[in-house]
């Protein structure tokens, strides 16, 4: 390599090309995961009034928890509130498409389910929705992971993933942790 300014800039350009390749690989892998493997951020745009959740058709207390909807989709509906999840335990079958829908009447919360890619914020005014398939069975931890006030540390739910043959919804389509079938 020579002393000249041109040589210096040429070497930097060569490095920039290498950097472009690396960034390109990362972007392609991300696109592949998004499109082919269906791994996307939770971006469901759906409004709901936080002040009247209990009066809404969907998030009224008797409709919370896991239910097999009339269209056959397994949906768990959960409310996040200071400082508990309602219900704080819900059942889902493994190896099957499931949907989790969450909202909050008060402040911002958030959840993750340990060992999975399930992770979403829960905002008052919005319904958060995550579609996924669980493969490992057992009791998974679902803590509130967004600071929501002094009781944040205690706010935790359990996701009970059962083998498909143990998933027995009642006549109304509902399953709960007390009577998982």
């Amino acid at each position: 390599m020579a002393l000249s300014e041109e040589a210096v800039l040429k070497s930097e350009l060569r490095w920039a090309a290498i950097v472009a390749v690396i960034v390109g690989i990362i972007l392609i892998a991300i696109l592949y995961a998004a499109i082919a493997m269906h791994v996307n951020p939770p971006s469901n745009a759906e409004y709901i009034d936080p002040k009247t959740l209990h009066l809404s058709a969907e998030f009224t207390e008797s409709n919370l928890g896991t239910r097999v909807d009339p269209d056959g989709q397994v949906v768990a509906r959960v409310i996040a509130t200071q400082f508990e999840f309602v219900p704080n335990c819900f059942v889902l079958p493994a190896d099957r498409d499931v949907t989790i829908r969450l909202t909050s009447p008060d402040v911002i919360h958030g959840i993750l389910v340990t060992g999975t890619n399930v992770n979403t914020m829960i905002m008052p005014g919005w319904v958060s929705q995550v579609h996924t398939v669980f493969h490992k069975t057992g009791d998974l931890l679902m803590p509130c992971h967004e600071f929501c006030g002094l009781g944040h540390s205690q706010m935790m739910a359990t996701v009970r993933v059962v083998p498909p043959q143990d998933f027995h919804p009642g006549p109304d389509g509902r399953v709960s942790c007390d009577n998982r079938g």
Partner: protein
Amino acid sequence: MAARPRRRDAAALETGRLVMAHIWVAIAVFALACLLGVWQMWARSPLNAPYHTAANYFRSVTLHGVSMGYVLTTFFIMGFGYYVAETSLRRPLPSLALAWGSFWLGIVGTLMAALSVVSGNASVLFTFYPPLTATPWFYIGLVLVVVASWIWCLIMIFAMRTWKAENPGEPVPLAMFATVANAVMWLWTTVGVAAELLFQVIPAAFGWTQTVDVGLSRTLFSWTLHAIVYFWLFPSYIAFYTMFPRAAGGRLYSDTMGRLAFVLFIIYSLPVGLHHLFMDPEHSNGFKFLQMFLTALVSVPTFLTIFTITASAEVAGRMRGGKGLFGWIGALPWERPMVLATGLAFFMLFWGGGGGLINMSYGMNAMIHNTSWVTAHFHLIFGGTVVIMYQAICYSIWPSITRRDFASLKPLRLQLWLWFIGMMVMTLPWHWLGLQGQWRRVAAFDYSNPLIHSWGPWVIVSLVGGIILALSALLFIYNLAMLHRRGVAGAPASIEYAQAVHPPERVPSSLNGFGLWNIIVAVLMLLAYGWPIAQFFVSPPPQAVVHRLG
């Protein structure tokens, strides 16, 4: 070749006391925050910590975050900026009086915010978390600190403008060019949080509004949230480019690439904030993907810096006799704090930057959002790479301010090693725990739960790392304080900045000013944030009820 201006050698620095005042305030707040951090880790561990209540924990986290993120940084950056303005431009500051005014404004704001937090009425942490709402005096205190920093920005811009008028056609010294780039970027950056506070949060805190659009507030805050970390990072990169090559006994590989890196940071650090909101429902995959793509672009100036600075190190090592492909590494003067710190910083940049690449990877963010992985990432990249360079900068400039040299560099090196070791020991377990699902902002873990129980030992390892960091922070203060009393008299009144292999005679105006880059920022922000913000006005979602604390 233009004649070199006469050095202001004999006289003391006009900005000496101004710089010291800013940096000592930054250091004092930093040390307090370090001690709070240790207590926080103790509280979260299986060990019993004193005064352990949720109220105290979140008071501490708020104080720790606000001290480290808003006070240490802003005051250090302002102080260092004044130092660079005087020593690299070799002229007095446009207005010392205004600079002191902004310092006192910042002090008043800091005290207001700090006392609000201590009172327990402002446990809203660094991110504020609306609709949780603190006492308005907390937010107003922080607004005053931001206003003080805006005054600093104007002084920096004016200093560069005046120098350019006095030196037509000359390239602005790289250290000052980068400092003003930071000022320009900061003015853009603060728009988001200023809008959130002035139009949403403070009215709610005073009780003038009862609801708040939290989607909008999080989006406005995200505008600031990423670019602010580049505001923090600039002084460290300034040290990489303009101080390290000199300390290593060599030259900066390319002055042009330095300028390019800094302007790339200006344009790409701003339109990327949505990557903090990947898990939020209020933005579409389209805009999340766009901002992820822009985030990939902001990694480019760091990749370029890695090469340019490594090449500069190679030049220095070879000038000192290093041979072969790697011999130059051993030949570097590692006993010099600036050289040691740069090496340690780059090692931490590998881990912290790597973690950041995972965070920004769109769907992959779901693996780690709001887990200890995130905590690990920013402690390593900010607390590690950036702050260790702040420490090295202090060691570098203190002799010229106190006019005393360090009698021995050993305690300086010890302090830097302790900081590095402590940071690695503290943050590596957090990465692992984050992948296991350990979540953030927890005052106390229920160790009777089997999964959480398995985390216990690692939490204690992190605590040990934190204790090492606290010791390092105390040694840092001791090292600097001693220079005020002891030390070898007769140090020169300014540091010497690094020279480039090819010192520029002329640079294009785009690498000597910011007109073009301001236009590009405006265009990119319109593209990336235009609809994400406008949507809240075009199709307003239901608002959240304000929850006032205390």
